[in-house]
């Protein structure tokens, strides 16, 4: 059902306008950010008959602010903008690497961080595990006000978040950490990754891991933390071989999703190698 004035497509000019338009459409409406996921709906044999509210022209949603303690990323910031803005920040390396390696340059110029988070059927989204490992949070805006939640919580509730609410911005805390994003596509580039490991760690002055966050993407339908592995990394120095051995021990935590590009068992099997490469990448960030 289109909006009350019959529109099937509305280009919102402000956040208030977007939320009002979404509320007007109710369950028959949806926000449209970069559109790269929704435009492919027919190829997935999905319907594309909602009334769309385009949000990519809203200035506030296109802002990326690097503040002293956090980075505020508007929902419509593209992968290309993320890569160019965050590439020089060591504490955000995982997110910059995720952004610069996803899809291909022409898609990265359009696809947004908000779209990557909201495409609930897209298991291979690169930005999601990177944001999880960096302890990012989201701000959701709606007619009744805003709500802040972790990425983990958002992934749990995103399909039922309500038609009149949208992701306003992503907040990444700035802390003295090292991070890396390691992905395995079947081709060198331009392909969806079979599996993703995003790793962030803080080290004490002697090089011992004080805290660790490991997030795994593309293996299961939804990206998530690998908490057993995180615990096993804390209290030890960065050792790629040991980390891979620990990953091998805990691989049973995952049930790989089947797909035309790779069977489920293969996605799980490659995890120790990706963990080893992630720890190696952190070692090199001295």
């Amino acid at each position, binding site marked *: 059902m289109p909006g009350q004035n019959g529109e099937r*497509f509305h*280009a919102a000019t402000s956040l208030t306008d977007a939320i009002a338009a979404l509320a007007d459409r109710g369950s028959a409406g949806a926000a449209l950010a970069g559109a*790269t996921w929704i*435009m492919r709906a027919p190829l997935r044999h999905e319907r594309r008959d909602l009334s769309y509210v385009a949000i990519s022209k809203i200035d506030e949603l296109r802002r990326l602010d690097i503040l002293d303690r956090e980075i505020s990323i508007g929902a419509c910031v593209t992968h290309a903008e993320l890569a160019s803005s965050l590439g020089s920040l060591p504490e955000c390396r995982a997110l910059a690497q995720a952004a610069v390696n996803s899809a291909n340059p*022409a*898609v990265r110029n359009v696809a947004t961080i908000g779209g990557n988070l909201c495409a609930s059927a897209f298991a291979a989204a690169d930005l999601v595990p990177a944001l999880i490992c960096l302890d990012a949070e989201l701000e959701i805006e709606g007619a009744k006000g805003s709500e802040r939640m972790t990425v983990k919580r958002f992934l749990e509730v995103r399909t039922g978040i309500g038609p009149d609410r949208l992701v306003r911005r992503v907040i990444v805390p700035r802390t003295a950490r090292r991070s890396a994003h390691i992905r395995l596509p079947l081709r060198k*580039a331009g392909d969806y990754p079979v599996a993703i490991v995003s790793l962030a760690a803080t080290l004490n002055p002697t090089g011992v891991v004080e805290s660790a966050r490991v997030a795994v993407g593309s293996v299961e339908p939804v990206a998530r933390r690998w908490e057993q592995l995180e615990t096993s990394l804390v209290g030890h120095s960065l050792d790629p071989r040991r980390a891979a051995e620990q990953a091998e021990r805990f691989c049973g935590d995952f049930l790989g999703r089947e797909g035309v590009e790779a069977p489920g068992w293969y996605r799980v099997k490659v995890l120790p190698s990706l963990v080893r490469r992630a720890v190696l990448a952190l070692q090199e960030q001295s």
Partner: protein
Amino acid sequence: MSLRLVVNGEDRVSRAEPLTPLVDVLRDEFHLTGAKVACREGFCGACTVHIDGQPVVSCLVPLGMVEGREVRTVESLAAAGELSPLQRIMEEHDVVQCGMCFPGILMVLTSFFREHPRAERGEIKVALVGNICRCTGYERLVDAAVALAKRS
């Protein structure tokens, strides 16, 4: 409902549905058939055009999101009848085979060389990861692009 956009410097109006892929409007309504339709999922790059100077895959861009923006297609590269330096060197190296991927490759490299005029071979290959050539003529076109970079 009509939507206004600027295509190759000309004001244009389309009456297509706002979710119509831009590539279909360019080809079917404006008869600019340089951008090719192949995969329709952003993988092959054959439909690449510039929007506000940035290369994008026009199969994934709905018309409604281009309103008021500037679109440039491969037809704009030799608008005055004279080939661009990139087009000339591709011709010199006899790069074109079937021509399906070629317009997209020209649009990607035109944008890329604007920012990286002296790019190395590896950088050129990275820039082209989103362009698939079904004739597999990659090396010859990369050779041509390298030659252009060396002339800069």
